[in-house]
């Protein structure tokens, strides 16, 4: 591996981040660069893909996951520095409907989603494997309507594809992150799932065990800085911690 | 039927400008390698589109640039025996043979599979694939395939080149029958003068993309000017004759010509049939007096009409035999020794056996 301070300081911080963070993180990285002159190279992919790559020795300095499971898996394998792990962001899942002016609905115990769907589909990310889908399924289960809805669920490989299905009107309803729903006119958020109905949706971040880039800590810290906060919030995320420094 | 061909075409800097008309019968295209024979045939078939020209077979205009006619190949109803056999590799020999039948209107299906199979001796091969045939076998199947398509015009590009003599002499009479009985017009490319002499009604000699000579076979063959085209060995005249009678004891046939009687090996035609006999110039001996005690059976009184050029070793002597012309080729030494000159009377001697079965052909009786 290369050492030598000149090369070191030039090396960008490599961040492996869940793809849904792209807009916010790109913005944060830009401001970080203009403030410090240092760059971050961010690789966006599915959390599972990124985690497996880190398991195989990927040259990542920071991992930002869209769910806790993969972060835990890496922590168990001692592939991240546990002391640096923190829950960075929080998100919500919402029920969306096709169209600009769909009527808001009240989500409660046993509400008749299946009836509203009629013979339409409920678009979700894969309910057993993709985080947004997992949360959605948990919520529907705790509301006691999973059994009725399950046969009408159309699962996609990522949450954006679910959004697209609703946006195109292929599916009348869908469950996506609040951050996704905000951006398009073609769908209306008709309800937000109660936070109690599903495990907390958090985006943990940590420095990898193999990272030897001294800027990694700085960037991770910067993610929690007030400067970064705005970027995240503009995309609809709730920032969980703000580091006192900076 | 007449065949009327006029075409111009160009390959790179090779120019072809051919035009000829031929009456019913077999039209032989004759010429050296690369002269343009295949190109002409391809144009008749519609496989080469000449830059300009006109091709009329019988009343049917197959191609005419001035009138914008260009009948597609499949509508021309030709049968084409290619220079290379071009059998369909995925079909058995039988399927190859029958291929054209699918497309021939039922009314015109003249040839029977069994007849053609017998003629070409391919019964043994029917269930083989073309890849399992010898060169000559392929060619025979290709001939059969074209025949069985019941075409109204048959194009044959050196069809017998890869066949042995025995096979050739079986197929030649069949082509004659097609010409005379079925009255199927045939355009025939061959390098073999004896084939051409026997079969052709009309000879079209092509040289370097132009027509060097067209005319009835007898005329072209006995014209010393065309000898260089044909090779001197094969030059000769074609004598019209009529079958007089067959000698059952000897197996000889007596023919009557304008100049006297001829004996030839048996001709398979009833007395009274018109035939034509090719007599090669090199086979005839001239004698000043009527010779005696010769094994040669044919001795006819003739008159020398004209001596050809005396520059070379041999001299072509045109003689008149009755009202017909014959050609004799002798050495210049003989001309001098015997004092041969125009107007001189002498005798033409030639052997019966020198006239081969393949030199005698029946005459298409109803030319139009």
């Amino acid at each position, binding site marked *: 591996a290369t050492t030598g301070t000149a090369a070191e300081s030039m090396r960008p911080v490599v961040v492996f981040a869940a793809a849904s963070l792209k807009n916010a993180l790109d913005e944060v990285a830009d401001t970080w660069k203009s403030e410090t002159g240092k760059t971050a190279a961010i690789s966006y992919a599915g959390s599972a893909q990124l985690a497996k790559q880190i398991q195989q020795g990927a040259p990542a300095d920071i991992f930002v996951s869209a769910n806790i499971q993969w972060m835990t898996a890496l922590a168990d394998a001692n592939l991240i520095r546990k002391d640096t792990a923190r829950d960075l962001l929080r998100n919500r899942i919402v029920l969306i409907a096709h169209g600009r002016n769909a009527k808001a609905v009240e989500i409660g115990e046993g509400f008749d989603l299946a009836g509203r769907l009629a013979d339409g589909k409920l678009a979700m990310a894969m309910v057993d*494997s993709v985080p947004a889908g997992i949360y959605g399924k948990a919520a529907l289960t705790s509301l006691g309507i999973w059994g009725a809805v399950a046969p009408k669920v159309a699962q996609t*490989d990522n949450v954006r*594809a679910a959004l697209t299905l609703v946006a195109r009107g292929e599916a009348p309803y869908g469950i996506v992150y609040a951050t996704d729903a905000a951006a398009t006119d073609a769908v209306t958020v008709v309800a937000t799932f109660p936070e109690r109905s599903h495990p907390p949706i958090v985006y943990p971040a940590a420095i990898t065990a193999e990272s030897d880039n001294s800027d990694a800590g700085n960037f991770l810290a910067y993610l929690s800085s007030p400067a970064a906060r705005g970027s995240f919030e503009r995309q609809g995320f709730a920032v969980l911690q703000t580091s006192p420094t900076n | 039927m007449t065949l009327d061909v006029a075409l111009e075409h160009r390959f790179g800097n090779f120019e072809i400008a051919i035009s000829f008309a031929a009456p019913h019968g077999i039209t032989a295209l004759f010429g050296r390698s690369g002269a343009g024979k295949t190109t002409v045939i391809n144009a008749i078939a519609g496989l080469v589109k000449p830059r300009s020209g006109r091709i009329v077979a019988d009343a049917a205009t197959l191609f005419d640039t001035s009138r914008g006619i260009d009948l597609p190949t499949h509508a021309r109803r030709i049968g084409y025996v290619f220079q290379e056999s071009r059998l369909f590799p*995925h079909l058995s020999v039988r399927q190859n043979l029958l291929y054209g039948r699918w497309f021939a209107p039922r009314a015109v299906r003249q040839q029977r599979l069994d007849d053609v199979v017998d003629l070409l001796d391919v019964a043994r091969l029917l269930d083989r694939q073309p890849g399992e045939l010898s060169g000559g076998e392929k060619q025979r199947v290709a001939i059969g395939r074209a025949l069985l398509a019941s075409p109204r015009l048959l194009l044959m590009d050196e069809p017998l080149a890869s066949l042995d003599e025995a096979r050739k002499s079986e197929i030649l009479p069949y082509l004659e029958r097609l010409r005379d009985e079925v009255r199927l017009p045939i355009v025939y490319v061959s390098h073999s003068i004896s084939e051409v002499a026997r079969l052709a009604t009309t000879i079209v000699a092509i040289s370097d993309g132009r027509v060097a000579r067209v005319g009835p076979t007898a005329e072209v063959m006995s014209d010393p000017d065309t000898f260089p085209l044909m090779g001197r060995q094969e030059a000769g005249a074609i004598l019209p004759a009529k079958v007089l009678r067959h000698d059952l004891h000897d197996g000889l046939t007596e023919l009557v010509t304008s100049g006297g009687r001829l004996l030839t090996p048996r001709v398979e035609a009833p007395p009274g049939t018109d035939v034509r006999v090719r007599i090669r110039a090199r086979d005839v001996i001239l004698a000043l007096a009527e010779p005696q005690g010769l094994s040669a059976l044919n001795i006819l009184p003739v008159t020398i009409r004209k001596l050809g050029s005396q520059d070379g070793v041999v001299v072509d002597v045109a003689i008149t035999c009755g009202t017909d012309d014959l050609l004799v080729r002798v050495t210049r030494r003989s001309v001098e020794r015997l004092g041969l000159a125009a107007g001189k009377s002498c005798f033409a001697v030639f052997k019966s056996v020198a006239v081969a079965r393949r030199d005698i052909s029946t005459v298409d009786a109803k030319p139009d």
Partner: protein
Amino acid sequence: MDWLSPDEWTAVRLSLQVSFWATLVSLPFGVLTAMALARGNFWGKQLLNGLVHLPLILPPVVTGYILLLLFGRRGAIGAFLDQTFGLVLAFRWTGAALAAAVMSFPLMVRAIRLAIEAVDPKLEQAARTLGANSAWTFVTVTLPLILPGILAGAILAFAKAMGEFGATITFVSNIPGETQTVPSAIYAFLQVPGGDASAMRLVLVSVVVAVTALALSEVVATRVARRIAAK
């Protein structure tokens, strides 16, 4: 074998069904397109060629998205098909078949096209002289001669269809029993920690299926080719 769950079995059956129909139905179009590209000389040939290759060039997700735009219930063609023929593709296995067909079309066309280009035009000329018009020439000469190529194209398409994932899931999503093919199932397993083993079982199944199909096709192709062999 009970080491596959019923759902997984369903996915395997569905994958086979989707791949089979995708291949079969696209085959005639593949032959026509290959013929046009190999022999045709028309305006827009390069355009057609580009279009055919598009699914290869675009990320599958994009192809899936385009399919959704065109063939979804609200899509131009989708709506038409639905109203005219009652044919719904969205969220149906037929849609999965369409996605698989589109994705494998370039492979199929290229294989067939190569075969067509290898046919000796002299044989087709011979057929013409024997009275066969273009259509008959094609059916009786060209088509049999390109059979090995068609077979190659079909098997390539089948294999590709068996592995197609991105466009399929984007277009028809993943509905167990309807559109959940083996690749979707595999993908799902790979997304969760510890799912690798389950994924590998499915991988094995699809490999076995596809390699069997492949080997079968080789046998058939060899037989066909031997018949035509010695030109």
